């Protein structure tokens, strides 16, 4: 039986990150979350919720044990599959905005295989109990992204990237990321209908928290895959951008809550091989 207890506001960014941006128009039936299913992985050190995203990318929400008031996981590893939209709806049963002065408490309990996930939410004396059915965990795509293979890494203050990501030319199919020990150091490029656009961050910029680039690498990623992670960018204070020998991209967004506690959103993406070289 695993039991996790934490104040709501630690969990608060989670639904926001995974919910559909109301400004985005989509012909799909209205659903708050673009990803229907997720896997929840619990081990002794953390709780990880991995959204089932289209192949070649992965988005997960990571909460370390330390930020929980109570973190009791008996087994080495527990995994189950859960409907993400339902989970989000339950988590936001008291509404999506955190009211100041009325902290919501969340307790998650999972008895084991084939049992539902129990959520207890309490706000202002009102308690809501949710039982969400769980499923067999699906085989998750393992991106096998390990630090030893990392070629280039930069850590940027999110403030500098937010606007850039929001203004990305969406008529471009790809986002090209160039990381290099030489100029242009760190460059984001799009190739859209209007022409190409480049965003350059110099290594000595105030926004650059860390710059470790060993080799010049240029990789392209499907922009549609990257878009869902931009919500996390909006909420984060720092983002770490890493590429490995295969050109796989890892984005780690550090989100700090009111108590100063940190949770992470991790995003992995494969480089796009199919797209032909666009002219500059």
């Amino acid at each position: 039986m695993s039991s996790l207890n934490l104040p709501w506001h630690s969990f608060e960014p989670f639904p926001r990150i995974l919910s559909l941006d109301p400004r985005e128009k989509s012909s799909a039936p209205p659903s708050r979350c673009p990803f229907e299913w997720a896997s929840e992985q619990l081990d002794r050190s953390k709780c990880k919720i991995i959204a089932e995203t289209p192949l070649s990318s992965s988005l997960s929400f990571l909460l370390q044990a330390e930020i929980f008031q109570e973190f009791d996981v008996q087994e080495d590893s527990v995994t189950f599959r859960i409907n993400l939209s339902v989970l989000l709806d339950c988590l936001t049963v008291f509404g999506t905005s955190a009211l100041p002065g009325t902290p919501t408490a969340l307790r998650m309990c999972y008895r084991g295989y084939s049992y539902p996930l129990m959520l207890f939410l309490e706000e202002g004396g009102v308690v809501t109990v949710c039982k969400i059915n769980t499923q067999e965990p699906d085989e998750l795509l393992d991106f096998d992204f390990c630090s030893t293979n990392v070629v280039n890494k930069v850590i940027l203050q999110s403030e500098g990237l937010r606007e850039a990501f929001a203004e990305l030319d969406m008529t471009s199919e790809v986002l090209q990321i160039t990381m290099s020990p030489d100029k242009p150091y760190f460059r984001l490029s799009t190739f859209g209908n209007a022409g190409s656009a480049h965003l350059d961050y110099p290594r000595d910029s105030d926004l650059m928290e860390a710059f470790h680039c060993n080799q010049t690498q240029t990789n392209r990623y499907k922009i549609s895959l990257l878009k869902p992670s931009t919500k996390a960018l909006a909420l984060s204070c720092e983002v770490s951008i890493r590429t490995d020998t295969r050109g796989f991209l890892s984005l780690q967004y550090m989100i700090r809550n009111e108590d100063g506690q940190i949770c992470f959103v991790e995003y992995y993406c494969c480089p796009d091989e199919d797209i032909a070289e666009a002219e500059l």
Partner: protein
Amino acid sequence: MGGWGGGHLWTPPPSPLGLGGDTLCPVRGVTSVCVCPPQLSLRAVNSSRSAFASFLFAPLFFQLYEARGPPPHLELCRCKVLMKSFLGVFRSLPSLEKTVGKCLILLKPRASRLVVQLHCKYGVTKTHNLTFQECERLQAVFDTQRCASSLCAPARVLAEAVVHFPQTLAEVTLAAGPGGKISLRNHVEDEAEPGKTMVTELWLAEDEFQTAAVAPGSRITFCLKEFRGLLTFAEASNLPLTVHYDVPGRPVIFTLEDAVLEVHLVLATLSDPESNLQPPMANGVSHLPAPSDEFADDLGSYMIAMEPPSTYEEGSGVPPIPPFPLCIPDPAESDTEEEEEEEEEEEGAVLGTPPHKKFRSLFFGSVLAPGEPSLAPTLEVLAEDSDGEY
């Protein structure tokens, strides 16, 4: 382009460009902005050719202007960039001022690229390589000297006036009234039911204008949306706005000028061929909707303008007439092309009356109080009373 391998370079302050782009945007249907060196001139015309805007930035506007490469051939490089692309560079205007320090514009004719580079805070550089096409010279032919009337006011005065009109309003009528007053009224379609249309009219006193040299009784109707765009720019740039207009059908020209910037917005106006035949006559009744279509064809061509109760000019020679519904009939012609203006050797933009508008009269009859007998043989119901007696 011949052997001219160089490009032009400007490094202006970025926000007026962005604002200028935003102003061009409401010129509906515009899809391109023509960049014509050596001055940086942004010009746009809408697809129906009823609106033309130009922003001319003098070399002084820029911190640095240089033409690189061998001197250009006689044929200047003129390029046309997609409006959306250009505006995309200057998105998020409010943050532009705070984040962008310097803007570089480089024209690369050989590569068919217009490069706009924004140097932002924290050393970040945004470079946009916009594709362009060569375009013909884009110039509307207009002459403010030929306009009978002109007004000049701080943009704020006009901006505060148009705020009273709904955002969805398509056209507005500007008119010169008695006592030097200037009125603005929403233009009402013929198809609208007279009894169910709201008319908003406001009057500006002569002293609100810096200069007002208007032909008495003159009036014009033009598109409000495009005008609003210009007002936003005018307010931001803190320049007085001058309005030059002539008779209905001839374009109205709005200008903003200072030492480094010249802006023109030329809009077609609704034409009314019989408007200049007779002067409008006064009557002390208040505003009212336009008469309906069914009006008889054989009416005389005089009309009544709605004026506030005050003396009207001498010289009209006609004594005040009691409330009398009258209008110029609508011949149901579809928009007529503006009379041809002389063209330059290359093609200029010819302004036509806005599309899908029948030309119509801009004059209104008076409101008849319910129960009052009509005074004209052909009474037109202009304002139905609420219990639908008529």
